[in-house]
Each structure stands twice: as structure tokens, then as C-alpha cells.
């Protein structure tokens, strides 16, 4: 799959994003990394121009509850409702349900084995093949964790 890994906001730590990008590459995916400090508008344009199927958002600054719903909303109004969104970084458990409600399908915290993310993507693929909705703007019923 074509996957964009993005760093929204002012957070300048991207070791985690790079580890994930590498793991996905080794899992046979085409991974596009955006670099640091992207605005929601920039991220949405990158997802569009790269025609990505999946967007992974990495944030460690605590701004996830403001930035991630904003990005999800912008994807929906830009005709990108079928893009699958997952998040990673420092995200407290209590914030997860809000993210799920925004359309995020999985949240991966510190200590997650990279194989978990690959398994998530396999599940996404098999659900897509069965025409089940997994996109950010589609039926929010299912999420991975």
C-alpha cells in the first residue's frame, strides 16, 4: 500500500516515525515520509498528491487532540474519506475514543511491536477487499484497538 507518515505540529522528535516508516518499508509497503512540522493543510495536500491509501500521524507533543481531528476533518471535506488514518506517539488512553470518533482506526503507543502495525494494515486490506468501510470519513464502527 502507499502510506504517508506525517509529523503534524511543532513536535520535533521523529525517531518513532522513522522506525515505523522503516518497518512498513520492510513489510513491502511504499512509504512516503513528510518530514517535521507540517500543518494539517500541508498533510492533506501531501496525502492527496501522493494518492496515499493510508496516513500515519505521529505526535509526541500533546497536541494530538487538537491536530488529529482537524486533519481528519480536512481529509473528509477534500474527497479523501476513504483514506485510512492511524496515530502513534504519546497519546493517553483517555483520549483514544475521541480520536476513534474522528475516524482514526488505530492508536499505537510506546512499546508497540512494529509487527502490530503490519498486522493492522493486513486487517485493513482484508476489510477493504470485503468492501467493509475503514476510511476516515466512513462508518466508524470498526477500530483496531
Amino acid at each position, binding site marked *: 500500500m502507499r502510506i504517508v507518515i506525517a509529523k503534524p505540529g511543532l513536535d520535533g522528535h521523529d525517531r518513532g516515525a522513522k522506525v515505523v*516508516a*522503516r518497518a*512498513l*518499508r*520492510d*513489510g*513491502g*509497503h*511504499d*512509504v*512516503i*515520509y*513528510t*518530514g517535521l512540522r*507540517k500543518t494539517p493543510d*500541508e498533510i492533506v*495536500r*501531501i496525502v*492527496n*498528491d*501522493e*494518492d496515499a491509501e493510508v496516513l500515519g500521524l505521529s505526535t509526541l507533543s500533546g497536541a494530538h487532540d487538537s491536530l488529529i481531528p482537524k486533519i481528519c476533518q480536512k481529509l473528509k471535506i*477534500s*474527497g*479523501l474519506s476513504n483514506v485510512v488514518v492511524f496515530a502513534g506517539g504519546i497519546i493517553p488512553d483517555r483520549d483514544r475514543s475521541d480520536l476513534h470518533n474522528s475516524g482514526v482506526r488505530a492508536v499505537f503507543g510506546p512499546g508497540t511491536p512494529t509487527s502490530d502495525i503490519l498486522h493492522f494494515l493486513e486487517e485493513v486490506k482484508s476489510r477493504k477487499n470485503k468492501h467493509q468501510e475503514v476510511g476516515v470519513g466512513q462508518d466508524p464502527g470498526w477500530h483496531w484497538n
Partner: protein
Amino acid sequence: MALELNEAQELFKSAKNGDRRSLSRLMTSIESGNIPNLERKQCWTLGITGPPGVGKSTLIGQMISHWLVKGHRVAILALDPTSPVSGGSFLADRVRMDQADLSEEVFVRSIASGSNTGGIPNYLGEMCFALSECGWTRILIETVGTGQYDIRIFGYAQRVLLLDGPDRGDIIQAEKAGILELADFIAVNKSDLPGSESAVQGLKLSLGLSENEKRKVHLVSALEGTGIADLISTIDSCEINDSRRKIRMREMLISNWDSLLLNHSQIDLYLEKLCSGSITVNDAINSMVREIISRGE
């Protein structure tokens, strides 16, 4: 197939009307072999090639700003290698093109080189024609980091910039034959680092050995943005070198031929037979070519 072609045609139509989502999906469609009817008119293309780490992406980032000021719409097709082990890729050229994300007048598409020889997929030509018809006036192709004789880019770009860096003295000597002879523009990046001036001198010395050599060796710093305006004006005022038509066609022919072979449905079977020694390379070529012809691929 007809359905997919119709879809490609529809995407092309709305991309021409300025719909960015359609343009992006059109690129994917071309990548998967569903190509709309294109006019294949002359389009403005520049290949940017050079060794890995020399600063191609960073330089492109700088060039974007200059062309935007001049009112151009800039599209970039950025190639990065596909892993021969996993089949995946890490496409990070755009990380160094910060300027690209700030404007609607810039379109960056990262492309995995796939198993294509020369690191250039043969659908790149169609992508350029489509972008041109959709109103992109500067189309840049960034190659994967290349060596001395990676000249496939000449099959796809009308003009080519070779970018080099400091501390590559011996390689400069070795590059006398090959890409250095063909490049329309030559630049040494990293003028902010020691050794860049002597790299320029080395290149000039090498070029000076040929008669009628008119090419200038530019010294730039993609990091600091120096020397870029001069390079842009050289590129913009350059007439297309039509004497290379045969070289271009040769590279395009080889590229398409390779792709026929690499996309042969039985290629893995032939590779296994070659490994076990049950057929020779000539046997493999003969029967693969026969199969390609009989299928009219």
C-alpha cells in the same frame, strides 16, 4: 480494461479542469497501465541526476521558489529506490523540498523505482505528457542517486542537469565518459563546504579537453540558496539539443524493452530454470521473446 480506460479518460478530463484529486488519481492510473489519450506534444521537462547525497532534492526545493516567482506551476516526479529484498520503499525526497508544501502551484509525486533497470519506470513519459496538458509548465524528474553511466533519464527528460558535490575528485575523472558528456547543465552543490571550488575546477579541466565545449559549470549552495538564480537562467534560456534524439530514442526503446521482459508473466519460472542450469540465458531469451510476440504484448 475498457472500463478502466474510460475512468482514466474521465480523470484526465477533470484534471485538465484543475481538479487536483483527479490529477493525483490519474498519476496512479498511469502507473498501473491505464493511460488516457494524450496529445504527446512537446513538454518542458528537466531531469536532475547525480550521485546519492549530493543534494538533488534540496536543490529542487530552491529551484521551485525561483520558478514560482516567475509564474510557473512546478510538478516534481521524485524517484527513490524500491527494496530488492522486501519490495517496499522509503520515499523521502519531499522531506528536503519544504517549499513544495507551501503552494498550490507545486505538485510533488514520489515514485518507487520498482524493478525497472536504470531506476526509471517506463510510464514516466506518459506522466509528463499528462502533467503538461494539465497546465504544469515546469516538470522536474529527480532520479534515484546514480553512477557514472546511468543515462536512462535522457529517454524521458528533454534536458538534464548533472549535480555533483565536493570531495569527489577521482570520480570526476572517471566520469569523463558517460553522463558528463551528455548532461545539458552541470552544477557543483555545497559551495558552503570546502572542496567545492576545486570540484568545479576539476570539472572545468575535464570539459576543457573537448573542443567546442560551451557548457558552464555552476557552483551553487542548495542549503544557502546561492548561485541558484544564475543556474535557473541558464536552464530557462537553453535551446533543446535535438542532436541527441537518437540517444533519447535508444534509451526509451531499451527502457520499454526491459519492461516487457520484467513484466513477462513467467519471468520467475525462467529465473528458476536459469538458477538450476536447465536452460541457458540464450534459451530463456529466445522463448520469452517468442511468447511476447505471440501474445502481442
